[in-house]
């Protein structure tokens, strides 16, 4: 598995796209998706919600467990991925693409986000 170079990563295994017009797209990494197993339910933050870096903003449920979803940045949610709500297996099949989770108008980001290479070293994958 390879972690796309153009993304940045949190230690909670989310990825963050480059910020365009103030907005970034967020998802979970392939490593995290594999660790979860088949995702069967996604509760995502709603448009207008304020999310805070490092705090929970939803949950991902897999066959065996439920995991909190964290936001890697602070800001207002501008979109969530209805396709994932309808078909949570997208998180497994295309974690970096069609399985994105939500978009945030970034107001603040922590200074410990990782580059692709740093995240690969951190996760061992």
């Amino acid at each position: 598995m390879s972690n796309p170079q153009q993304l940045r990563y949190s230690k909670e295994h989310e990825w963050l796209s480059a910020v365009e017009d103030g907005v970034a797209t967020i998802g979970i990494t392939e490593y995290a998706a594999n660790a979860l197993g088949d995702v069967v339910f996604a509760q995502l933050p709603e448009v207008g919600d304020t999310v805070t870096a490092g705090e929970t903003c939803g949950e991902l449920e897999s066959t065996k467990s439920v995991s909190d979803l964290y936001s890697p940045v602070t800001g207002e949610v501008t979109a969530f991925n209805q396709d994932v709500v309808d078909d949570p297996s997208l998180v497994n099949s295309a974690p970096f693409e069609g399985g994105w989770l939500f978009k945030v108008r970034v107001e603040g980001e922590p200074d410990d986000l990782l580059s692709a290479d740093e995240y690969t070293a951190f996760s061992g994958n």
Partner: protein
Amino acid sequence: MSTAPRLTALDALHRSLGATMTDFAGWDMPLRYASERDEHNAVRTRAGLFDLSHMGEITVTGPEAAAFLSYALVGNIATVGNGRARYTMIVQEDGGIVDDLIVYRLGETEYMVVANAGNAQIVLDALTERVGGFDAEVRDDRDAYALLAVQGPESPAIMKAVTDADLDGLKYYAGLPGTVAGVPALIARTGYTGEDGFELFVAPEHAEALWRALSEAGEAHGLIPCGLSCRDTLRLEAGMPLYGHELTTALTPFDAGLGRVVKFEKEGDFVGREALRAAAERAETAPPRKLVGLVAEGRRVPRAGFSVVADGKVIGEVTSGAPSPTLGKPIAMAYVDAAFAAPGTEGVGVDIRGTHEPYEVVALPFYKRQK
């Protein structure tokens, strides 16, 4: 004290197949190889191959082996025919369930008791203690066997490609010694998936050759390796109890809705008889909580330990829950107050992290194969 997890004879093979491993009852076992949903569906529609070497085999031999097992267990083992198997339980003096077991009668005076991995030592200790006074011997054979299972509608066809054993003559819940892929094996038509299938007890040194032969024979039939994760959703759909979830020492077989495994009519005394008699009477006069099925209307998954609620009150507890690949909805087994146990009872929900999600009460099992 920490001890390294035990490895099965197939450990290196699992890792070469890219399995996600998990600790299960002190064993490092394959949880899944790729997608547990695909593995589940393979067993329902084609076939799956499992390593179940963590199960605990105990051999009982001797002239009084049958009488001893009938005393030590709640079933009437004396009536098990040669080459047949029986689902039964071992209980404490107070009737609490120590484990659920399958007993295979391998010969006139030879039986194999298969215990759950987590309880194997406890069962072994209990049998060893209870055998005193009987002309019988209890032997720990946990290291003598690897256990492979082929489960699913294609399993007879796959097995026929690797054995000359009379599989057509082998009924459900029966076992016979034979040769599979050149390897001596006890071939049992048992399983824990709700499908037709076979469990193969072999010497550990033969496990890998057998696994490879079954994989090869199964390829054209869509057989894939399967882990414990799908085994759990398969058994849950089939309404089969799991020790530690639906069965515990706090429950008698009657509390678990499995009073039928207790045979009061058998000859001689047996451990737990008095307590079980009382439990049977209690169950008749004051029905205990009943094990029911719950099907979610939404998509949130009930987990073991979650409260079942109605009218704002707790009326039961989930014992097992998972998303059901076959039904496409979350399902659960739960013990609920008798007043809410009838299928279709209105207003039942599960407290999922503070939210009361609606559930439909259904009769078990959720899934029954078409024969």
